[in-house]
């Protein structure tokens, strides 16, 4: 698999654009899924997936071929998603730490655009509910949680994708799980 990808990458670098199509079809579902889970919107997910592949194509010469291609591709996509989420946030002050709190409850209560009333959440279909709860996670934890539990990637790879130390990734996943537990407990 990786060998095939490296072969295609070399072809693209030599100017054969059509070799990129195979790369796209191999990774499009995984990338789209990450974007969709991060953004919670199909249209935006499609936009960002496309943008990620275009960036990968343009910057392919900067990819270190000794490394794993999917890690590099996931990194481009998650960075684009995080940028998009930040731009959507209505107020910058939401990022500010809240004195005297650990931040979790505060973050999780505002991470989603507008929290829904409890009865409405209870009526949700399971799949909508999953997406809704992921969307309520603070984006720091969301990317780690999505890569861990939706993409089922090993912690080491997540640390390379997010360019964070392994310990930080673990902490984010732990906090993400705790946040989710608290979100679910209220219902």
């Amino acid at each position: 698999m990786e060998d095939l990808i490296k072969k295609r990458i070399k072809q693209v670098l030599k100017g054969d654009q059509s070799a990129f199509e195979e790369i796209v079809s191999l990774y499009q579902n995984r990338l789209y899924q990450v974007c969709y889970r991060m953004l919670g919107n199909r249209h935006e997910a499609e936009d960002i997936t496309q943008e990620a592949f275009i960036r990968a194509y343009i910057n392919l010469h900067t990819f270190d071929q000794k490394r794993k291609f999917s890690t590099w591709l996931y990194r481009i996509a998650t960075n684009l998603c995080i940028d998009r989420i930040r731009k959507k946030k209505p107020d910058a002050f939401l990022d500010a730490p809240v004195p005297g709190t650990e931040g979790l409850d505060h973050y999780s209560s505002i991470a989603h655009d507008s929290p829904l009333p409890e009865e409405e959440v209870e009526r949700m279909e399971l799949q909508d509910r999953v997406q809704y709860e992921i969307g309520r996670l603070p984006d720091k934890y969301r990317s780690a949680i999505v890569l861990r539990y939706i993409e089922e990637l090993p912690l080491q790879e997540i640390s390379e994708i997010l360019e964070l130390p392994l310990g930080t990734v673990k902490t984010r996943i732990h906090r993400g799980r705790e946040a989710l537990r608290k979100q679910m407990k209220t219902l």
Partner: protein
Amino acid sequence: MKPCPEEIVRYMHDYLDGEITRRDEQILKDHLEKCPECQQHMDGLSRSVAFLKSAAPVAAPEGLSSSIMAALPKERQGAGVRRWFGRHPMLAAVAMFVLLAGVALLSNFHTEDQFAVSRQPNLVVEGNKVTVPEGQTVKGDLVVKNGELHIEGEVEGNVMVINGSKYMASTAVVTGQVEEINQAFEWLWYKIKSTVKDSVSFIKGDNGNGEE
């Protein structure tokens, strides 16, 4: 009831990460058996994980890959050029400048290949032959492009022949400079010179009268 040891919650997460040592796992199990609160905490975490794992796989919409391919920048041999540019940024900048300047000026040179002459009274124009008749005086600069210039009279100013020929009779008098430009390179040089001259005279607020 005495408070639970701090590391219990950490063991729970280590367990969920699949990175717990046997010893810690035993401690966790023993603790959960006798502590309903921690058991509840553990259950909550396990439920959260199961809940996340219940997410159905999402497939990319149809046609995404073809719209991506269509949106790629169209440059097949671009990658190699870009890599070269990346390695030699200064050279690339110089090459780019020379290329652009050359293209801009040369394209001027080629598009202006029809016959042209400065509008001056007293000039006789037949086909692409321009004559300053004997005994007549042309006041101001005279420029002929892609034509033949015969000077028999007097020109009070500079004379310039671009891509053409010039014939001066013995009676001819030119008070300014006489220049002939036939090569693309000279044309380029002339363009650069006159641009500089123009901007200098513009700065001086001098309404260029053809005198140097």
